[in-house]
């Protein structure tokens, strides 16, 4: 029996006894690495750590976190949600809808999912709690909104997937566009219906909005919406116009947020120091998981993990439909424990040849695989989205509430998957229409 087969169970045990995820991954990797590399285990693990520490794409993470931390202190979150309350207050689930919309907008600005979630989370949690939304709904909304970074271009995951599967990045991004929009529509529809069935308790301080004059309302809206729109325009615009790469756009966002802060008169050295402190702490937490995941993947592969899966597929002898279901299931299961980088790194090279041989449309399959990766990002017990949320959540928000909160959104994502599976044209039509230049 292969060592690789024991790595996942061991990992589960460690994680469930409360050892931090990153350190659990490292313990298992070191054990498996010792068997595969003997005395050279530390060199090998160091190499994986080095790969993670030198990955340029990950540079976007600290900067998007910094952007979020500064925005949180700029007072823009309260202002923005006040505006949302003014205009969407009567709409059922208004703030939740606004959070999803912000998630979609920031997803279009950033390619890294965790950073988007942390940023909208920092803005939305205080505001939604003040308006007495249930913790589970807040958690689910933020996790789901944050996860959109996977499906909405630019998506680092899609770029990496396409590169590994040897398919066109442009076609894949175009293929994901309609399913991504469909997902947003489903989210918003659900939140409105949910808000009608089970509205949050009324709050007493909303009354001042009722007494506001239209003139005041418009003024608040203007002074809140204009700067944040300018910020989003700076990030998205610099990205779409090809002025900045996704990583550089993150820097533009951080500086833009700082300017906003100065504009609102909230800037101070203490505030900057606090933002930096949070940035370092959250980035260290996220990147240590990436580094540990890279170690895990390396030792898993070295112990025959990839071969194990390859042999299993060949032995099973699936038809096309069976093979698609089987592959997506593996992606989902690995997604329980691996971060997306490791998941894509392991799965794509394993599956791509089978998909090609079977004559399955690679864009269609790629789109579905990416939906599943986004779903596995939400699935408890080990959901990256919940880890990120926990790092910024107030103490009264429990793990159980978070797990309950993401369930409806997982179902909505699976619904999207089912629709794309039944109507492949959703993924394949747009790429066939797109003109590259």
């Amino acid at each position, binding site marked *: 029996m292969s060592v690789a087969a024991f790595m996942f169970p061991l990992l589960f045990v460690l994680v469930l006894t409360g050892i931090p995820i990153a350190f659990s991954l490292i313990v298992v990797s070191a054990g498996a690495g010792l068997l595969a590399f003997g005395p050279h285990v530390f060199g090998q693990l160091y190499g994986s750590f080095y790969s993670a520490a030198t990955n340029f794409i990950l540079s976007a993470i600290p900067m998007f976190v910094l952007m979020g931390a500064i925005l949180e202190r700029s007072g823009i979150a309260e202002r923005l949600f006040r505006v949302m309350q003014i205009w969407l207050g009567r709409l059922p689930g208004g703030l939740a809808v606004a959070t999803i919309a912000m998630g979609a907008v920031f997803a279009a600005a950033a390619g890294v999912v965790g950073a988007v979630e942390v940023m909208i989370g920092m803005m939305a949690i205080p505001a939604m709690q003040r308006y007495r939304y249930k913790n589970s709904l807040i958690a689910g909304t933020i996790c789901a909104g944050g996860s959109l970074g996977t499906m909405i271009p630019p998506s680092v995951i899609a770029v990496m997937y396409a590169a590994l599967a040897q398919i066109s990045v442009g076609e894949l991004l175009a293929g994901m566009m309609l399913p991504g929009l469909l997902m947003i529509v489903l989210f918003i529809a659900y939140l409105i219906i949910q808000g009608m069935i089970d509205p949050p308790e009324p709050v007493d301080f909303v009354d001042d909005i009722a007494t506001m004059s239209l003139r005041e309302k418009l003024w608040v809206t203007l002074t809140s919406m204009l700067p944040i729109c300018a910020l989003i325009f700076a990030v998205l615009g610099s990205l779409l116009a*090809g002025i900045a790469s996704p990583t550089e756009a993150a820097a533009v966002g951080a500086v833009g947020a700082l300017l906003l802060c100065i504009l609102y008169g909230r800037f101070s050295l203490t505030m900057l120091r606090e933002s930096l402190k949070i940035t370092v702490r959250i980035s260290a937490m996220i990147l240590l998981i990436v580094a540990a995941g890279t170690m895990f993947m*390396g030792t898993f592969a070295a112990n025959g993990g990839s071969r194990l899966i390859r042999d299993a597929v060949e032995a099973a002898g699936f038809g096309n439909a069976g093979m698609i279901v089987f592959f997506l299931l593996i992606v989902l299961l690995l997604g329980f424990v691996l971060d997306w980088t490791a998941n894509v790194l392991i799965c794509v090279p394993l599956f791509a040849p089978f998909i090609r041989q079977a004559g399955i449309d690679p864009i269609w399959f790629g789109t579905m695989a990416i939906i599943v990766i986004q779903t596995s990002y939400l699935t408890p017990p080990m959901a990256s989205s919940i880890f990120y949320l926990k790092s910024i959540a107030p103490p009264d928000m429990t793990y159980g509430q978070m797990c309950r909160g993401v369930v409806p959104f997982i179902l909505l994502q699976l619904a999207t998957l089912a629709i794309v599976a039944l109507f492949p044209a959703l993924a394949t039509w747009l790429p066939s229409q797109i003109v590259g230049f």
Partner: protein
Amino acid sequence: WQVPTSVPEGSPFYVNFLERFADNVDLLTSGRVEIEPFGAGVLVPALQVYDGVRDGIIKAGHSTPSYLVNQDPINAIFAGFPGGMGPEAYITWIYEDGGKEALYDLRASEGFKSLIVGIGSSEIMAHSNVPIKTAADLKGLKYRTSGPWAEVMREYFGAVPTVVPPGEIYTLLQRKGVDLIEWGPPSANLPEGFHEAAKYIIVPGVHQPTFLWEVVLKQETWDAVDDDLKPLIEKAAEMTTMEGLIHFYSADVKAMETYRSGKNEIITLDPTFVTELSEAGVDWITKKAAAEKDAGKPAMDDLLTKYKAFEATWSAESKYLIRNQD
């Protein structure tokens, strides 16, 4: 042997060089030596395959001398440099006229046993948002490239070499964040989709007329291999290089045909401009070799002299070859 490489699993270099080598070794040694290929970054960092072998983490690794040029410029001669020999002449020099021995000696001095596993065809000089026809067209353009060509472009043509990580090349090219990019030979660029991002395709690949990949092992590891297996593994490597190059030719012309039948405009540079570009490249490497010699390391200069001598003979006497070019 678990053999990692510097490119992701599924890339043409992985399939055409490393997987082919694994298959050939399996065939020739009747399964006595098993090579298990690994994609980039799984066992060791993508660019540190040589280090991984040196540190004993892996028994063997597959990579290209390109990554060693910054450390020791003599590697540029083996990696293929701007204005250097094309694949036909180069593979002949490598296998028949001293190239292979020179590379193997260099690696031996570093404690490695090298096996050439893969020689490539010429690359596409650029996928470009703007047409390039003369040297003046290059001035001030943002060009994603690296290595010696970046220096040649900056110093001799006033272009602006730009560093872009692999995953972001397509996006920046499509959004005109860079004006032009170079990546690999036609068949390797096709799956990357660059032809969908930019209209113009500039050939020939003066910047990278050919390239070389090798499998390296520690000398001790090689010495421990059964004597009857060594020649079989050597043969498998040689066979892989030959088959790999021919496969590239075949896939490349089909890729070019695909480009031509699509929306792209293929610009074949004027011979005088090609000469101008080549001479700049050769001037660059000649100066580099001279600088090395001044620094008390004459090896590069000696090797370059031999390389140029072979190239001169080839250029002068290869006109009898039928090339079937329009």
